[in-house]
Protein backbone atom coordinates (compact mmCIF):
# COMPACT_ATOMS: atom_id res chain seq x y z
CA UNK A 1 0.00 0.00 0.00
CA UNK A 2 1.23 3.52 -0.77
CA UNK A 3 2.41 5.64 2.12
CA UNK A 4 5.31 7.51 3.66
CA UNK A 5 8.61 5.69 3.11
CA UNK A 6 10.82 8.38 4.67
CA UNK A 7 10.40 11.64 6.56
CA UNK A 8 12.74 14.39 7.64
CA UNK A 9 12.64 17.64 9.59
CA UNK A 10 14.82 20.71 9.65
CA UNK A 11 14.61 23.45 12.29
CA UNK A 12 17.09 26.36 12.27
CA UNK A 13 19.08 27.02 15.45
CA UNK A 14 18.22 30.66 16.19
CA UNK A 15 15.42 31.46 18.64
CA UNK A 16 13.78 34.67 19.79
CA UNK A 17 11.66 34.83 22.92
CA UNK A 18 8.21 36.41 23.10
CA UNK A 19 9.53 38.81 25.79
CA UNK A 20 12.22 40.09 23.42
CA UNK A 21 9.67 41.01 20.75
CA UNK A 22 7.13 42.38 23.24
CA UNK A 23 9.58 44.80 24.88
CA UNK A 24 10.31 46.49 21.53
CA UNK A 25 6.64 47.18 20.83
CA UNK A 26 5.56 47.93 24.40
CA UNK A 27 3.32 44.86 24.40
CA UNK A 28 2.46 42.74 27.39
CA UNK A 29 4.52 39.55 27.07
CA UNK A 30 2.67 37.53 29.74
CA UNK A 31 -0.66 38.08 27.99
CA UNK A 32 0.80 36.88 24.65
CA UNK A 33 2.39 33.89 26.35
CA UNK A 34 -0.84 32.99 28.10
CA UNK A 35 -3.26 34.02 25.33
CA UNK A 36 -1.41 32.39 22.44
CA UNK A 37 0.56 29.77 24.45
CA UNK A 38 3.80 30.84 22.78
CA UNK A 39 7.23 31.08 24.42
CA UNK A 40 9.74 31.44 21.60
CA UNK A 41 10.09 30.85 17.87
CA UNK A 42 12.70 29.58 15.41
CA UNK A 43 14.43 32.17 13.22
CA UNK A 44 16.42 31.34 10.07
CA UNK A 45 20.06 32.41 9.77
CA UNK A 46 20.66 35.07 7.06
CA UNK A 47 21.99 32.36 4.72
CA UNK A 48 18.90 30.16 5.10
CA UNK A 49 15.67 30.24 3.14
CA UNK A 50 12.89 27.91 2.03
CA UNK A 51 15.21 26.20 -0.46
CA UNK A 52 18.08 25.51 1.97
CA UNK A 53 15.75 24.16 4.66
CA UNK A 54 13.88 22.05 2.08
CA UNK A 55 17.17 20.47 1.02
CA UNK A 56 18.17 19.65 4.61
CA UNK A 57 14.77 18.15 5.47
CA UNK A 58 14.70 16.16 2.20
CA UNK A 59 18.19 14.79 2.90
CA UNK A 60 16.93 13.57 6.29
CA UNK A 61 13.93 11.95 4.59
CA UNK A 62 16.25 10.23 2.10
CA UNK A 63 18.45 8.89 4.92
CA UNK A 64 15.37 7.27 6.47
CA UNK A 65 13.98 5.93 3.20
CA UNK A 66 17.32 4.59 1.97
CA UNK A 67 16.32 4.82 -1.71
CA UNK A 68 18.17 5.94 -4.82
CA UNK A 69 17.13 9.61 -5.32
CA UNK A 70 17.22 9.17 -9.11
CA UNK A 71 14.09 7.02 -8.76
CA UNK A 72 12.12 9.98 -7.40
CA UNK A 73 9.66 10.97 -10.13
CA UNK A 74 8.12 14.08 -8.57
CA UNK A 75 9.32 16.84 -6.23
CA UNK A 76 6.96 19.44 -4.75
CA UNK A 77 7.82 22.34 -2.48
CA UNK A 78 4.97 24.05 -0.66
CA UNK A 79 5.75 27.48 0.79
CA UNK A 80 4.60 31.06 0.93
CA UNK A 81 8.21 32.23 1.11
CA UNK A 82 9.74 30.83 -2.08
CA UNK A 83 12.98 32.83 -2.53
CA UNK A 84 12.12 33.69 -6.14
CA UNK A 85 8.82 35.00 -7.51
CA UNK A 86 9.78 33.30 -10.78
CA UNK A 87 12.26 30.38 -10.64
CA UNK A 88 11.28 27.11 -9.04
CA UNK A 89 12.46 26.12 -5.56
CA UNK A 90 11.75 22.52 -6.56
CA UNK A 91 14.39 22.53 -9.29
CA UNK A 92 17.15 23.52 -6.86
CA UNK A 93 15.91 20.95 -4.34
CA UNK A 94 15.76 18.19 -6.99
CA UNK A 95 19.27 19.13 -8.16
CA UNK A 96 20.68 19.15 -4.61
CA UNK A 97 19.35 15.68 -3.79
CA UNK A 98 20.31 14.33 -7.24
CA UNK A 99 16.78 13.57 -8.39
CA UNK A 100 17.39 15.33 -11.73
CA UNK A 101 16.69 15.30 -14.66
CA UNK A 102 13.86 12.74 -15.00
CA UNK A 103 11.60 14.37 -12.43
CA UNK A 104 8.41 16.44 -12.38
CA UNK A 105 8.57 19.43 -10.06
CA UNK A 106 6.32 22.28 -9.01
CA UNK A 107 6.20 24.98 -6.36
CA UNK A 108 2.95 25.25 -4.47
CA UNK A 109 1.44 28.10 -2.47
CA UNK A 110 -1.70 28.03 -0.31
CA UNK A 111 -0.84 29.99 2.85
CA UNK A 112 -0.07 27.46 5.60
CA UNK A 113 -1.27 24.35 3.77
CA UNK A 114 1.09 24.39 0.78
CA UNK A 115 3.12 21.60 2.38
CA UNK A 116 0.17 19.24 2.83
CA UNK A 117 -0.96 20.08 -0.72
CA UNK A 118 2.36 18.73 -1.95
CA UNK A 119 1.86 15.62 0.19
CA UNK A 120 -1.62 15.17 -1.28
CA UNK A 121 -0.33 15.36 -4.87
CA UNK A 122 2.79 13.27 -4.24
CA UNK A 123 0.79 10.51 -2.56
CA UNK A 124 -1.82 10.55 -5.34
CA UNK A 125 0.84 10.18 -8.07
CA UNK A 126 2.32 7.20 -6.25
CA UNK A 127 -1.13 5.64 -5.73
CA UNK A 128 -1.92 6.15 -9.42
CA UNK A 129 1.29 4.40 -10.39
CA UNK A 130 2.55 7.42 -12.36
CA UNK A 131 5.83 7.60 -10.40
CA UNK A 132 7.73 5.16 -8.18
CA UNK A 133 8.63 7.70 -5.50
CA UNK A 134 7.48 11.27 -4.90
CA UNK A 135 8.85 13.91 -2.53
CA UNK A 136 6.79 16.63 -0.87
CA UNK A 137 8.25 19.38 1.30
CA UNK A 138 6.51 22.02 3.41
CA UNK A 139 8.90 24.85 4.28
CA UNK A 140 8.67 28.49 5.22
CA UNK A 141 10.60 31.44 6.51
CA UNK A 142 7.36 33.08 7.52
CA UNK A 143 6.80 36.80 7.31
CA UNK A 144 5.20 38.76 10.11
CA UNK A 145 4.99 42.56 9.97
CA UNK A 146 6.97 44.31 12.72
CA UNK A 147 4.67 44.96 15.67
CA UNK A 148 1.86 42.79 14.30
CA UNK A 149 0.54 39.89 16.36
CA UNK A 150 1.93 37.55 13.69
CA UNK A 151 5.47 38.62 14.55
CA UNK A 152 5.27 36.58 17.77
CA UNK A 153 4.55 33.37 15.88
CA UNK A 154 5.91 33.61 12.28
CA UNK A 155 8.77 31.09 12.34
CA UNK A 156 10.97 28.94 10.12
CA UNK A 157 11.26 25.21 9.53
CA UNK A 158 10.79 22.44 6.98
CA UNK A 159 9.42 18.92 6.83
CA UNK A 160 9.87 16.46 3.96
CA UNK A 161 7.98 13.27 3.12
CA UNK A 162 8.91 10.63 0.58
CA UNK A 163 6.02 8.57 -0.70
CA UNK A 164 6.23 5.13 -2.26
CA UNK A 165 4.53 1.75 -2.36
CA UNK A 166 7.37 -0.43 -1.10
CA UNK A 167 8.19 -0.69 2.61
CA UNK A 168 6.12 2.23 3.90
CA UNK A 169 6.71 3.37 7.47
CA UNK A 170 3.17 4.79 7.52
CA UNK A 171 0.48 3.57 5.14
CA UNK A 172 -1.88 6.25 3.81
CA UNK A 173 -5.38 4.90 4.45
CA UNK A 174 -7.45 7.95 3.51
CA UNK A 175 -7.27 11.57 2.35
CA UNK A 176 -9.80 14.38 2.35
CA UNK A 177 -9.78 18.05 1.40
CA UNK A 178 -12.10 20.89 2.43
CA UNK A 179 -11.93 24.24 0.63
CA UNK A 180 -13.97 27.47 0.47
CA UNK A 181 -13.21 31.08 -0.50
CA UNK A 182 -12.59 32.69 2.88
CA UNK A 183 -10.52 35.92 3.00
CA UNK A 184 -8.93 35.53 6.46
CA UNK A 185 -5.28 36.11 5.55
CA UNK A 186 -3.51 37.18 2.34
CA UNK A 187 -0.45 38.80 0.84
CA UNK A 188 -0.68 40.67 -2.45
CA UNK A 189 2.05 40.63 -5.09
CA UNK A 190 5.15 42.79 -4.20
CA UNK A 191 4.03 43.16 -0.57
CA UNK A 192 6.55 42.16 2.08
CA UNK A 193 4.08 41.25 4.79
CA UNK A 194 0.72 39.51 4.85
CA UNK A 195 -2.49 41.06 6.18
CA UNK A 196 -5.12 39.21 8.14
CA UNK A 197 -8.67 39.53 9.36
CA UNK A 198 -7.88 39.46 13.10
CA UNK A 199 -10.55 37.46 14.89
CA UNK A 200 -12.05 36.50 11.53
CA UNK A 201 -9.14 34.03 11.22
CA UNK A 202 -10.80 31.96 13.97
CA UNK A 203 -14.34 30.60 13.70
CA UNK A 204 -15.18 31.02 9.98
CA UNK A 205 -11.63 30.16 8.93
CA UNK A 206 -9.42 27.87 11.04
CA UNK A 207 -12.14 26.16 13.05
CA UNK A 208 -14.69 25.71 10.27
CA UNK A 209 -12.18 24.24 7.80
CA UNK A 210 -10.33 21.99 10.24
CA UNK A 211 -13.53 20.57 11.72
CA UNK A 212 -14.98 20.18 8.21
CA UNK A 213 -11.87 18.37 7.00
CA UNK A 214 -11.48 16.16 10.10
CA UNK A 215 -15.18 15.23 10.20
CA UNK A 216 -15.09 14.54 6.45
CA UNK A 217 -12.15 12.15 6.64
CA UNK A 218 -13.53 10.36 9.72
CA UNK A 219 -16.85 9.85 7.95
CA UNK A 220 -15.11 8.66 4.79
CA UNK A 221 -12.88 6.20 6.68
CA UNK A 222 -15.43 5.14 9.30
CA UNK A 223 -13.09 6.15 12.12
CA UNK A 224 -13.78 8.12 15.29
CA UNK A 225 -11.46 10.26 17.47
CA UNK A 226 -10.83 7.43 19.95
CA UNK A 227 -9.46 5.21 17.14
CA UNK A 228 -6.43 7.47 16.68
CA UNK A 229 -3.27 7.23 18.76
CA UNK A 230 -2.25 10.74 17.68
CA UNK A 231 -3.66 13.76 15.87
CA UNK A 232 -1.86 16.76 14.40
CA UNK A 233 -3.68 20.00 13.64
CA UNK A 234 -2.21 23.10 12.04
CA UNK A 235 -0.55 25.20 14.76
CA UNK A 236 -0.83 28.98 14.18
CA UNK A 237 -0.55 29.44 17.95
CA UNK A 238 -0.57 27.16 20.97
CA UNK A 239 -4.24 27.47 21.77
CA UNK A 240 -6.04 26.71 18.50
CA UNK A 241 -4.96 23.03 18.10
CA UNK A 242 -6.20 22.13 21.59
CA UNK A 243 -9.46 24.05 21.14
CA UNK A 244 -10.25 22.44 17.77
CA UNK A 245 -9.24 19.06 19.20
CA UNK A 246 -11.74 19.51 22.01
CA UNK A 247 -14.46 20.55 19.53
CA UNK A 248 -13.85 17.32 17.57
CA UNK A 249 -13.62 15.06 20.62
CA UNK A 250 -9.86 14.47 20.81
CA UNK A 251 -7.91 14.41 24.05
CA UNK A 252 -4.85 16.47 24.92
CA UNK A 253 -2.58 13.42 25.03
CA UNK A 254 -3.37 12.64 21.37
CA UNK A 255 -2.32 16.17 20.35
CA UNK A 256 0.72 16.82 22.57
CA UNK A 257 3.45 14.75 20.83
CA UNK A 258 3.00 16.71 17.57
CA UNK A 259 2.36 20.06 19.29
CA UNK A 260 5.60 21.98 18.75
CA UNK A 261 4.35 25.55 18.39
CA UNK A 262 5.09 26.86 21.92
CA UNK A 263 8.86 26.47 21.30
CA UNK A 264 8.89 26.53 17.49
CA UNK A 265 6.33 29.14 16.44
CA UNK A 266 4.16 28.80 13.37
CA UNK A 267 6.25 27.45 10.51
CA UNK A 268 3.35 28.01 8.09
CA UNK A 269 3.68 25.38 5.33
CA UNK A 270 5.92 23.37 7.66
CA UNK A 271 3.58 23.53 10.67
CA UNK A 272 1.39 20.41 10.64
CA UNK A 273 3.98 18.47 8.55
CA UNK A 274 6.62 19.11 11.26
CA UNK A 275 4.05 18.00 13.86
CA UNK A 276 3.70 14.77 11.87
CA UNK A 277 7.48 14.20 11.86
CA UNK A 278 7.61 14.64 15.66
CA UNK A 279 4.70 12.21 16.00
CA UNK A 280 6.32 9.59 13.75
CA UNK A 281 9.43 9.94 15.92
CA UNK A 282 7.54 8.36 18.83
CA UNK A 283 4.65 6.41 17.22
CA UNK A 284 4.43 2.63 17.57
CA UNK A 285 3.61 0.11 14.82
CA UNK A 286 -0.15 -0.15 14.30
CA UNK A 287 -0.88 3.38 15.57
CA UNK A 288 -3.40 5.38 13.55
CA UNK A 289 -2.35 9.01 13.03
CA UNK A 290 -4.60 11.81 11.77
CA UNK A 291 -3.04 14.95 10.28
CA UNK A 292 -5.21 17.97 9.47
CA UNK A 293 -3.57 21.02 7.90
CA UNK A 294 -5.03 24.47 7.46
CA UNK A 295 -4.26 27.16 4.91
CA UNK A 296 -5.86 30.58 4.88
CA UNK A 297 -7.93 31.55 1.94
CA UNK A 298 -9.05 28.82 2.94
CA UNK A 299 -8.69 25.06 3.00
CA UNK A 300 -7.67 22.01 4.97
CA UNK A 301 -6.13 18.69 3.86
CA UNK A 302 -6.40 15.64 6.06
CA UNK A 303 -4.66 12.26 6.02
CA UNK A 304 -5.09 9.03 7.94
CA UNK A 305 -1.84 7.09 8.34
CA UNK A 306 -1.25 3.69 9.90
CA UNK A 307 2.29 3.30 11.25
CA UNK A 308 4.09 0.08 10.27
CA UNK A 309 6.82 -1.96 11.94
CA UNK A 310 9.42 -0.39 9.68
CA UNK A 311 9.26 2.83 11.74
CA UNK A 312 11.51 1.29 14.42
CA UNK A 313 14.17 0.53 11.84
CA UNK A 314 14.37 3.95 10.18
CA UNK A 315 13.55 6.65 12.72
CA UNK A 316 17.04 7.04 14.14
CA UNK A 317 18.74 7.25 10.75
CA UNK A 318 18.24 11.05 10.92
CA UNK A 319 17.91 13.61 13.73
CA UNK A 320 14.55 13.55 15.51
CA UNK A 321 12.40 16.67 15.37
CA UNK A 322 12.29 17.41 19.10
CA UNK A 323 16.06 16.91 19.34
CA UNK A 324 16.44 19.71 16.78
CA UNK A 325 13.87 21.84 18.59
CA UNK A 326 15.33 21.48 22.07
CA UNK A 327 19.05 21.12 21.36
CA UNK A 328 21.78 23.55 20.33
CA UNK A 329 19.68 26.72 20.42
CA UNK A 330 21.08 30.20 19.85
CA UNK A 331 18.99 32.99 21.42
CA UNK A 332 19.08 36.30 19.58
CA UNK A 333 17.99 39.82 20.45
CA UNK A 334 15.40 41.79 18.48
CA UNK A 335 18.05 43.90 16.71
CA UNK A 336 19.85 40.82 15.39
CA UNK A 337 16.49 39.29 14.46
CA UNK A 338 15.53 42.45 12.54
CA UNK A 339 18.85 42.32 10.68
CA UNK A 340 18.57 38.60 9.92
CA UNK A 341 15.01 39.03 8.64
CA UNK A 342 15.96 42.12 6.61
CA UNK A 343 13.56 44.34 8.49
CA UNK A 344 16.13 47.16 8.60
CA UNK A 345 16.14 49.54 5.65
CA UNK A 346 19.69 50.09 4.43
CA UNK A 347 21.30 52.41 1.89
CA UNK A 348 20.84 51.19 -1.67
Amino acid at each position, binding site marked *: MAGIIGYGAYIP*RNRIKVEEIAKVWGADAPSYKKGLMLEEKAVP*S*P*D*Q*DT*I*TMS*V*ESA*RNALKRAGIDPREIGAVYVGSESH*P*YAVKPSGA*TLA*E*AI*NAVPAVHTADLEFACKAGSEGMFIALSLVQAGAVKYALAVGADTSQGAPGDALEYSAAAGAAAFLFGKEKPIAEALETFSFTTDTPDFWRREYMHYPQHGGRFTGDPAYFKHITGSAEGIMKKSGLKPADFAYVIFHQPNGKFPFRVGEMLGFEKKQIEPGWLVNKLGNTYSGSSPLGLTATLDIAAPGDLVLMVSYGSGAGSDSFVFRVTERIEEVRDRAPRTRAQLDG*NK*NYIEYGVYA*KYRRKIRKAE
Partner: protein
Amino acid sequence: MQSPARSWREIPQRYRLEAAKCARCGFICFPPRLICPECGAREFGPHKLAESGKVLTYTVIRVAPQPFCDQSPYAVGIAELDDGVRLTAQIVDCDPAALKVGMRVRIEFRKVSEEGEAGVIYYGYKLVPE
Protein backbone atom coordinates in the same frame (compact mmCIF):
# COMPACT_ATOMS: atom_id res chain seq x y z
CA MET B 1 31.19 38.39 -8.30
CA GLN B 2 30.44 35.19 -10.10
CA SER B 3 28.30 34.87 -13.17
CA PRO B 4 25.17 32.70 -13.25
CA ALA B 5 26.89 30.50 -15.85
CA ARG B 6 29.95 29.89 -13.68
CA SER B 7 27.83 29.08 -10.67
CA TRP B 8 25.68 26.75 -12.78
CA ARG B 9 28.79 24.85 -13.96
CA GLU B 10 29.79 24.26 -10.34
CA ILE B 11 26.40 22.86 -9.25
CA PRO B 12 27.55 19.20 -8.97
CA GLN B 13 30.24 20.28 -6.49
CA ARG B 14 28.41 23.11 -4.72
CA TYR B 15 25.12 21.22 -4.25
CA ARG B 16 26.13 17.58 -4.15
CA LEU B 17 29.85 17.52 -3.25
CA GLU B 18 30.66 15.35 -6.25
CA ALA B 19 34.38 14.55 -6.37
CA ALA B 20 36.50 12.23 -8.52
CA LYS B 21 38.56 9.33 -7.16
CA CYS B 22 41.67 8.30 -9.08
CA ALA B 23 41.22 4.76 -10.37
CA ARG B 24 44.95 4.03 -9.99
CA CYS B 25 46.07 5.58 -6.68
CA GLY B 26 42.75 6.42 -4.96
CA PHE B 27 43.49 10.14 -4.61
CA ILE B 28 40.26 12.15 -4.30
CA CYS B 29 40.08 15.36 -6.35
CA PHE B 30 37.59 18.02 -5.33
CA PRO B 31 36.67 19.59 -7.68
CA PRO B 32 37.32 16.81 -10.21
CA ARG B 33 40.39 17.08 -12.46
CA LEU B 34 41.38 15.59 -15.80
CA ILE B 35 44.76 14.32 -14.57
CA CYS B 36 45.50 12.97 -11.09
CA PRO B 37 47.99 15.36 -9.39
CA GLU B 38 49.46 12.44 -7.42
CA CYS B 39 50.11 9.79 -10.06
CA GLY B 40 49.24 11.31 -13.44
CA ALA B 41 46.48 8.82 -14.24
CA ARG B 42 43.49 9.95 -16.29
CA GLU B 43 40.89 7.44 -15.12
CA PHE B 44 38.56 8.48 -12.30
CA GLY B 45 35.53 7.03 -10.56
CA PRO B 46 32.76 9.01 -8.82
CA HIS B 47 33.10 9.89 -5.16
CA LYS B 48 30.72 11.81 -2.90
CA LEU B 49 32.47 13.68 -0.11
CA ALA B 50 31.82 12.69 3.51
CA GLU B 51 29.26 14.97 5.18
CA SER B 52 31.13 15.45 8.46
CA GLY B 53 34.64 16.10 9.66
CA LYS B 54 36.72 18.23 11.99
CA VAL B 55 38.13 21.74 11.84
CA LEU B 56 41.82 21.73 10.87
CA THR B 57 42.31 25.47 10.87
CA TYR B 58 40.27 28.64 10.55
CA THR B 59 40.45 32.40 10.35
CA VAL B 60 37.95 35.03 11.47
CA ILE B 61 37.10 37.71 8.91
CA ARG B 62 36.40 41.01 10.64
CA VAL B 63 36.84 43.37 7.67
CA ALA B 64 34.82 41.66 4.98
CA PRO B 65 34.56 42.35 1.26
CA GLN B 66 31.43 44.30 0.34
CA PRO B 67 28.94 41.46 -0.35
CA PHE B 68 29.77 39.83 3.01
CA CYS B 69 29.89 42.98 5.22
CA ASP B 70 26.63 42.16 6.95
CA GLN B 71 27.97 38.82 8.09
CA SER B 72 31.20 39.97 9.80
CA PRO B 73 32.74 38.75 11.96
CA TYR B 74 32.55 35.31 10.36
CA ALA B 75 34.80 32.29 10.14
CA VAL B 76 36.30 30.59 7.13
CA GLY B 77 38.08 27.34 7.77
CA ILE B 78 39.50 24.14 6.41
CA ALA B 79 37.84 20.95 7.57
CA GLU B 80 39.24 17.46 7.22
CA LEU B 81 36.24 15.40 6.25
CA ASP B 82 35.84 11.82 7.43
CA ASP B 83 37.06 10.55 4.04
CA GLY B 84 40.31 12.52 4.43
CA VAL B 85 39.44 15.28 1.94
CA ARG B 86 40.22 18.82 3.08
CA LEU B 87 37.53 21.32 2.28
CA THR B 88 37.61 25.13 2.57
CA ALA B 89 34.29 26.67 3.55
CA GLN B 90 32.60 29.29 5.67
CA ILE B 91 31.81 28.04 9.19
CA VAL B 92 28.40 29.36 10.26
CA ASP B 93 25.84 29.09 13.08
CA CYS B 94 28.73 29.37 15.48
CA ASP B 95 30.19 32.25 17.49
CA PRO B 96 33.70 32.68 16.01
CA ALA B 97 35.04 33.02 19.58
CA ALA B 98 33.76 29.52 20.36
CA LEU B 99 35.49 27.86 17.40
CA LYS B 100 38.23 25.35 18.18
CA VAL B 101 40.65 23.38 16.04
CA GLY B 102 39.53 19.74 16.14
CA MET B 103 35.86 20.67 16.61
CA ARG B 104 33.38 18.38 14.83
CA VAL B 105 31.51 20.02 11.95
CA ARG B 106 29.11 18.88 9.26
CA ILE B 107 28.11 20.20 5.88
CA GLU B 108 24.84 22.07 5.39
CA PHE B 109 23.19 23.52 2.30
CA ARG B 110 23.14 27.33 2.52
CA LYS B 111 22.93 30.53 0.51
CA VAL B 112 26.51 31.43 -0.36
CA SER B 113 25.91 34.80 -2.02
CA GLU B 114 23.37 36.67 -4.06
CA GLU B 115 23.44 39.35 -6.75
CA GLY B 116 21.65 42.01 -4.71
CA GLU B 117 17.90 42.02 -4.15
CA ALA B 118 16.97 41.23 -7.76
CA GLY B 119 19.73 38.92 -8.98
CA VAL B 120 20.50 35.23 -8.86
CA ILE B 121 20.93 33.49 -5.50
CA TYR B 122 23.93 31.17 -5.30
CA TYR B 123 23.61 28.10 -3.10
CA GLY B 124 26.26 25.74 -1.86
CA TYR B 125 27.91 24.09 1.13
CA LYS B 126 28.96 25.59 4.44
CA LEU B 127 30.18 24.02 7.65
CA VAL B 128 28.17 24.10 10.88
CA PRO B 129 29.03 22.69 14.32
CA GLU B 130 27.82 19.10 14.60
